């Protein structure tokens, strides 16, 4: 029971511990603020700029979610397509990998030229950066299905589509949800990157503005906001994962 309590408390303890060490380090080594502001400085910035942080966070969250949803739909579809057909796999996969090796920062200016700045390029960037892990994981999940399970359906004369729906998709769900947790944080990164290049609002824009002002604590406050949003999003995904793939996590709840 006390063990359980410790575990409940652990995230807070670790976080508080981190902040204490950090604050202490800044004071002991007397880091100038542009190298590493102390948590107290950052906290000051959060309080002072609460309203812009909040408004910009909403904007970033909105674009992130939109991009993420697109990535989920697209990534799942593509992952399934790749797991489905060896021809699609062989043809499309290398292109996709190549595309994914390209830093998205380099793509944003092109998006801006086509769509102007603001929400659209941010959503697209979030999408572009987030869909790849989903594709890879879903494809891996499909590729590692136990043939015995497929046989159950094949023996019924099931079409490939049925096997996909009844075995392929459920069996690769743990992989899929595992990737969602990676994808949501990547989508965040995508939105923010795009905002730093091309937006009038959003955390990325705010951080860049702060940076060109050399308002370092505010930059860090932005990083902070991102971290917190990221954790919240991740937690939602993890909760979803547990709900959807509880069967795969059954070793967690032994009698």
């Amino acid at each position, binding site marked *: 029971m006390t063990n359980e309590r410790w575990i409940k408390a652990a995230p807070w303890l670790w976080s508080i511990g981190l902040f204490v060490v950090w604050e202490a380090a800044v004071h002991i080594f007397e880091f100038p603020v542009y190298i590493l502001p102390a948590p107290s400085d950052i906290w000051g910035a959060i309080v002072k700029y609460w309203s812009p942080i909040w408004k910009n966070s909403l904007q970033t969250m909105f674009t992130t979610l939109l991009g993420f949803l697109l990535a989920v739909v697209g990534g799942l579809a593509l992952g399934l397509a790749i797991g489905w057909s060896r021809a699609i796999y062989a043809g499309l996969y290398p292109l996709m990998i190549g595309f994914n090796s390209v830093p998205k920062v380099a793509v944003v200016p092109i998006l801006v030229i086509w769509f102007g700045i603001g929400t659209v390029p941010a959503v697209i960037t979030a999408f572009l950066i987030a869909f790849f892990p989903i594709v890879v994981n879903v494809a891996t999940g499909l590729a590692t299905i136990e043939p015995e399970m497929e046989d159950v359906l094949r023996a019924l004369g099931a079409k490939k589509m049925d096997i996909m729906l009844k075995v392929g998709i459920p069996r690769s769900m743990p992989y899929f949800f595992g990737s969602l947790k990676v994808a949501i944080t990547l989508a965040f990164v995508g939105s923010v990157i795009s905002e730093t290049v091309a937006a009038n609002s959003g955390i990325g824009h705010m951080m860049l503005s702060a940076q060109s002002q050399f308002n370092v604590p505010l930059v860090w406050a932005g990083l902070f906001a991102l971290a917190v949003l990221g954790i919240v999003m991740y937690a939602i995904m993890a909760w979803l994962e547990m709900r959807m793939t509880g069967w*795969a996590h059954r070793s967690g709840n032994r009698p």
Partner: protein
Amino acid sequence: MTGFVELRDVRLTYGGKADGTLALDGLSMSVKKGEFAAVVGPSGCGKSTLMKLATGLINPQSGTVEVANKEVSGPVSIAGMAFQNPSMLPWRTTLENVMLPLEIVQPHRSRLKSEKKAYIEKAESLLELVGLKGFGDKFPWQLSGGMQQRANLCRALVHDPALLMLDEPFGALDAFTREELWQVMRDLHGEKQFTVVLVTHDLREAVYLADRVFVMSARPGKMINERHVEFARPRPIDLTYEAAFNDIVHELRGQIADARAAA
């Protein structure tokens, strides 16, 4: 007229030609429509392989496989198969697992939505028949080994297949549950007249249920004998204590012993 299930001079090697395992070689067998066939043979002789060939899950290296007078080149859709290893899908409850074939096989597939209730009742009554009443909403990994096997049997039966392929469906059951299920199988077969191929290690089971018992040699497997079992149907369970019955069991026993010794 050829049989409903017809294998001719089949050969199958697993995994590569040179260094693979030759599982079946020169195997032929023919099961008539409505017949109840049993296959017995030593462990590892290729019985499960034979089942997979007949349902088209794997294709023979040489020889032909025909089911319902059509050459089999991919999975057939008229069969219900109970695998040796239950392989239930862990993300579905037992009832959902049992109902899986209904979601695949026509005409149930298109009726499933509209007649959901009737189908669920059917699946539940099957579960009850095998003694799993009330376990439908449990997940398969919450069932004991024997219970999983019984659910597996229900899954093979639920869509009223014309051909039933059973790979040791009663292996994990105690003698009484097993005998109960023999009678369930007997009655179902009498009523629906499907064709059955049953793999078993229990010779009494084979003789009690089957019209014909096929005996396989050790690996590489082929048929070394067929034994007609002529007892009138429906057969009472007491038949298994009669001398004529035990004679057949003993006869088969001797054949398998020879087959193993030959290997």
